């Protein structure tokens, strides 16, 4: 099968802090890859690099054969037309109606007739179960509905690849599972490839074909959900079961505490 997304040896530093340390991964056509990891593990940074919002300090990111990490702005824009992105907070434009939000990529990137765009918008909204909501404003609908509108907008141009940033964040468990189901359905119906960043276990195991677990900027485990579930890696087990790491608090506390009040670690 074709490789849709390929990440080669990506490194990223913020100042002196290393966020990503040699990430390598491949996503094949039609696959759903879930990127898991705790807060500060580097998964948001990785996602921002994948969609070209951040440049890696080292390494390459090929999306549909094009290296987005080194591309010029105009080349990036061309690649971006081929993938969709669902943001954590939906990121709908409040000044536009629901219909106009979904229509925006079509208006900007195609020469389609107004009437045709209207029909496509209707179809996309139907796919996410929001028939007839075109004229509502984003602030008039619930969080779950917003996510669905954002999803409809992400798939407006029929992308081959869709990125999801914490699709269940801020939603109740039932609505979150509705979104998960939608991701599954759309991936199958529209033969899309999906890359989902999440830290929610239930959701991750429900939708993933393959998973990777990020910890301190490195991939510590990768494989199908079953394999991850039975992984021997202590961090993975701890992450899946939500246990507190005894070391986490004691490791950091004394030096951090001293640093915070005296500005130095070796006070005594």
């Amino acid at each position, binding site marked *: 099968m074709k490789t849709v997304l390929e990440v080669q040896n990506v490194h990223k530093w913020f100042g002196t802090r290393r966020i990503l340390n040699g990430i390598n991964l491949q996503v094949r056509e039609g696959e759903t890859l879930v990127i898991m990891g705790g807060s500060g593990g580097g998964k948001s940074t990785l996602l921002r690099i994948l969609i070209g919002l951040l440049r890696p300090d080292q390494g390459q990111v090929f999306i549909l054969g094009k290296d987005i990490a080194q591309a010029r*702005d105009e080349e990036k*824009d061309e690649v*971006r*037309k081929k993938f969709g992105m669902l*943001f954590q907070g939906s*990121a709908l434009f409040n000044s536009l109606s629901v219909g106009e939000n979904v229509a*925006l*990529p079509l208006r*900007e990137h195609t020469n389609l007739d107004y009437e045709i765009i209207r029909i496509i918008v209707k179809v996309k909204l139907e796919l996410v179960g929001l028939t007839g909501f075109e004229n509502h404003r984003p602030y008039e609908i619930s969080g779950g509905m917003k996510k669905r509108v954002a999803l409809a907008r992400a798939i407006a141009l029929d992308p081959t690849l869709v990125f999801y940033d914490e699709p269940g964040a801020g939603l109740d468990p039932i609505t979150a599972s509705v979104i998960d189901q939608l991701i599954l359905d759309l991936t199958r119906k529209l033969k899309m490839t999906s890359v989902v960043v999440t830290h929610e276990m239930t959701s991750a195991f429900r939708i993933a074909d393959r998973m990777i677990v990020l910890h301190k900027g490195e991939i510590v485990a990768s494989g199908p959900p079953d394999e991850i579930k039975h992984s021997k890696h202590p961090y993975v087990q701890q992450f899946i079961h939500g246990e507190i790491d005894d070391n986490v608090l004691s490791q950091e506390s004394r030096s951090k505490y001293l640093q915070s009040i005296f500005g130095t670690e070796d006070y005594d």
Partner: protein
Amino acid sequence: MILKPQSFEPLGKKVILAFEELGRMSLLAQDFFYWIGIAPLQGKRALRRSSFADQLLFMGNESLTIVFLVTVSVGAVLALQAAYQLNQFGAAMYTGALVSVSMARELGPLVTAIIIAGRVGASITAELGTMKVSEEVDALITMGIPPIPFLVVPRMLAMLVMLPVLTVLSFALGIFGGYLIGVFALGLDGISYLKESFDALVTKDILTGTAKSFIFALLVGLIATYKGLHVKGGAEGVGRSTTESVVYSIIAIIISDAILTAVFFYAFP
């Protein structure tokens, strides 16, 4: 107290930051001019007409009442203060001339620009800042839509049209405010007051006043959009940036006014 070299560190950092900010702002200006000047020639879509129209309507609508109230009052105050001095020389009849010339050359552009910075500039920064922190700007970029022509160009162009329009209006409103005082409080003859007002005005006064308003529009627009697109730190950051946008705009307006007045004074004596 002994000043150690380190004592100057925070000051130096602030100066460096200020220059960095100026540099980034001029990059935004460069982008804006690229998009209105060069991009259309390369066949890129630089102007979203409906968005431009929305912004024009918004700016005019939001500020017309305030511009009316403030500039009529400024004209009236100017007439009163002028008459107080001119009376000592028995020259109260020249009140109209003084009001119209000062409104056109100085107070009309200045006061209108300050009102727009507070009313429209602040709302541009708040709007773009909110879009920035709620990832809407990121969403635009990932959709392959460049944010400069989509967000900055319509607002800047609307500012460049609307501020001069309101400024020209402010000349008339200031003269009207002066007229009210001249006729109803100072007992001057209405016809000769107006005649005096317009006789004293020359084309140069109107032109330099309007030219100033273009520069002010550019400054306010740039500062407002820059501050909006560079918000950091969530909702709190939006508030901070909005305040900074207004403060910096007003400082920029007054300093550039001083420079422009001097330039016009020596260039077109």
